[in-house]
């Protein structure tokens, strides 16, 4: 039933090029096209109970019939082909799968897609594109806040929501005075970003990138 979906055909054509391992500016457009249109749904026919769910991701509604065992992460990656969120551990221990639900960052590997109906889900693909980077994405590039890049979408989604958490007054382990709203600082960022592991060790640079976007002097704490 999906065979004549013109949308899907376009995906395949575009990704055939984007998939061929080229890193350069002029091919970014093709990668974007691939991401933007990888919304094709596929029905699995195997004999397991299924649920019809409606997921709202990056502003787009998706109607899916899914195995209730599917995590939000696997649904995003395997059904919606939004592969920006990564499966680093599938146990909530690394943060690579971080997405934003109703403004709050969560580990998408530890929630079921059926539990996320009616919520507004934002993934890295919803923040910016290669030719139109979100401020944090641009700052990560500028400060080299990544190396292998695998944890990066999770770091950026996490940082986006983390800054909002500070703005809305949520305290952290390093907030000295609980009776006052927390203030943005490198110390706060480090503590709050600790759910996002980076084995390449780009932490120091990530902090510079976040500090720049948040308007915090990165040298306030050396």
């Amino acid at each position, binding site marked *: 039933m999906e065979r004549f979906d013109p949308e899907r055909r376009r995906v395949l054509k575009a990704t055939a090029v984007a998939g061929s391992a080229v890193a350069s500016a002029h091919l970014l457009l093709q990668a974007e096209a691939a991401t933007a249109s990888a919304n094709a749904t596929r029905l699995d026919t195997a004999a397991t109970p299924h649920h019809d769910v409606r997921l709202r991701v990056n502003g787009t509604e998706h109607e899916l019939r899914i*195995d209730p065992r599917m995590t939000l992460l696997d649904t995003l990656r395997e059904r919606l082909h939004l*592969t920006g969120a990564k499966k680093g551990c599938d146990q909530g221990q690394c943060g690579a799968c971080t997405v934003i639900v109703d403004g709050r960052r969560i580990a998408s590997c530890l929630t079921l897609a059926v539990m996320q109906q009616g919520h507004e889900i934002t993934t890295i693909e919803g*923040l910016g594109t290669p030719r139109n980077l979100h401020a944090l994405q641009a700052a990560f590039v500028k400060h*080299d806040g990544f*190396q292998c890049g695998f944890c990066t979408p999770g770091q950026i989604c996490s940082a986006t929501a983390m800054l909002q958490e500070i703005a809305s007054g949520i305290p952290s382990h390093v907030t000295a005075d609980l009776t006052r709203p927390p203030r943005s600082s490198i110390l706060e960022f480090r503590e709050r970003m600790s759910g996002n592991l980076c*084995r390449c060790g780009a932490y120091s640079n990530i902090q510079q990138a976040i500090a720049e976007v948040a308007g915090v002097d990165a040298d306030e704490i050396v």
Partner: protein
Amino acid sequence: MKFDEPAGTNPIDQLKVVGRPADRIDGPLKTTGTAPYAHDRHDVVQNQAYGYVVGAAIAKGRIASMNLEAARAAPGVLAIVTADSAGRLDQGERNTARLLGGPEIQHYHQAVALVVAETFEQARDAAHRLKIRYAPAKGRFDLEAARDTATIPEKTGSGDPAETAVGDFEGAFRDSPVQLDQTYRTAYESHSMMEPHASVAAWDADGQLTLWTSNQMIAWTAQDMAKTLRIPRDKVRVMSPYIGGGFGGKLFLRADVLLAALGARAAKRPVKVSLTRALMPNNTTHRPATIQRIRIGAQRDGHITAIAHESWSADLPGGGPETAVLQTRALYAGAHRMTALRLAEHDLPEGNAMRAPGEAPGLAALEIAIDEISEKLGIDPVAFRILNDTQVVPDNPAPPDPDKNSDQTAPEARLDAGRPRRFSQRQLVRCLETGAERFGWKRRRSKPGSVRAGHWLVGMGVAAAFRNNLLTKSAARVRLDRRGRVTVETDMTDIGTGSYTILAQTAAEMMGVPLSQVDVRLGDSSFPASCGSGGQWGGNNSTAGVYAACTQLRRLVAARLGFDADASDLAFSDGEVRTASRSAPLMLATRDGPLEAEDAIEYGDLDERFQQSTFGAHFAEVRVDAYTGEVRVQRQLAVCAAGRILNPKTARSQIIGAMTMGVGAALMESLHVDTGVGFFVNHDLAGYEIPVHADIPHQDAIFLDEVDPMSSPMKAKGVAELGICGAAAAVANAVYNATGVRVRHYPLTLDKLVQNGLAIA
């Protein structure tokens, strides 16, 4: 291109693009989640099924029986691969244990089955329905117990001898007025790269196998896959354009990719496999633990007269040692010397390279020993290191005699008196001096435990960094198209190191075009074979390969445009080709069609005539909670001398990333061995702790100006691993300086401090 004489002036020396801190050209893809990693590849082949790997439940023994029926009958199951059904498999040259176990089991979590199903959920569920009965056998799982059974290893991996001796160590040590004799221990460590090993495999009707995987060494993997499956090498194509970290853990063919291929064959459709995180520490490789005995004898004036470094490690039968003594052969002066590697057999999973194998654990021990002997002598540890600097290789005062090459393992072969073998560059002293100045080393109190801020004890530590520069053949292809775009193709990989960017910078410099006009295509076995990524050999060799190919392309361009390719004033810059007398637009050369050239850099014996090494100095400041023994790093600085720095931004990232891993090794990383059952117990990212954001302060890394004409036309050297070499010891020495408690057993967790006399007040 043969590189057998020191590099003269060449187009790279313009440094219009090379040497500049360019942003990564793959940055926009990586930061937007659009860079395609292996497990993301919905784009490459349709109808992918999902494979789930099952690991052995015992560490050693046999599979007594396997009942697959329940799993086969589970919804969605397409195929189950086991050793029984996989057909005859050979073993990759670089694998110690078999990647698909059964009936014999060689280590815990050795893969014993792959369940392939329509969906991941179905494959995972069915995998739990396998009924496997084991007949366990007694195994050896304790390095301490195995130590006495250790022997001299036949191979060291690096090709270096297992033992060296110069002069009379025992006698000189005995006669030294100041002596240190201590034993140090480093832990089993896990690479814990963020991306699990993952692959998609597809066979076509002609028996051609295509693999999209995550691997540092494309050619090795293609070769070992072909060997394991017993098919021709040209039937295997490997692609690995984006790699979510490797650190040595993805150097080799591993179970994910082999099982994906076998699963795809069995299911007759493409199969995608990712190792679960919980399988990774025991199923894949790790950094072996070591026991290291170091003896140093010194004169009262601080000169080392005798130095010995012995290291014990263990591996599965057929494996190799952790080469923890190598740096001690080259780092400090001293007339009487001895080093020895010892290898025991055990039945824990296969040990292998992890970031700076050898030097990372070796310097972790040696540089504490240096701190200890400095203290005994009452000499500042920076000054002591400077005092014992050497400009010749102390373990190898003569160049190797070509007649004796066949007898490399005999230490005497290297010890003939003669012309001393010098380092191509050695700026260790400047690294130490510059670092001490920048870090404010003079504020350090030499008496441990004497700086206190509230409940925090504060201390500083230093360690030297050392890692050899390795020269390896590397090929590339470059193309200039009609639009003037330059495309680089090589099977080189970018594991976060910045390969895409520095290769583009190299091509841009060589062809005289802006960086934005270069495309780089990597990680495809259909491209010319490169050095690959590992051992910090990637940057210098792969760029030199592109240099070689660009040199050929420049000749083609020159010929097309009527220039004398050998003219001394021929220059490619700003989109033009010019000499003093005329110029022509570069694009004119491709008016009648694109131009393409392929070449490789191949090395002569410059690395034998000169010892090529990289040097650095690590400084760390820590605070230790006097009550709880918690250690927090407050400042870190590395000063590095590693040849020309091709891109200061990405090179700096390599250094600080390695320093971060050094903090992990110093303070928290350890795979805990259950010596009864025989496995690494803490096999996930909650149990095996690696540093998080809150553990890492702002880090400084600076590079000394250095160009090394012996290394390659790029005059660069490896840099990626230098940052971890010595990093752990700097932290350990800072902990001692803060607390007065000397811990010689990594990691320096708080239990070792509070149980060894950490004073609260």
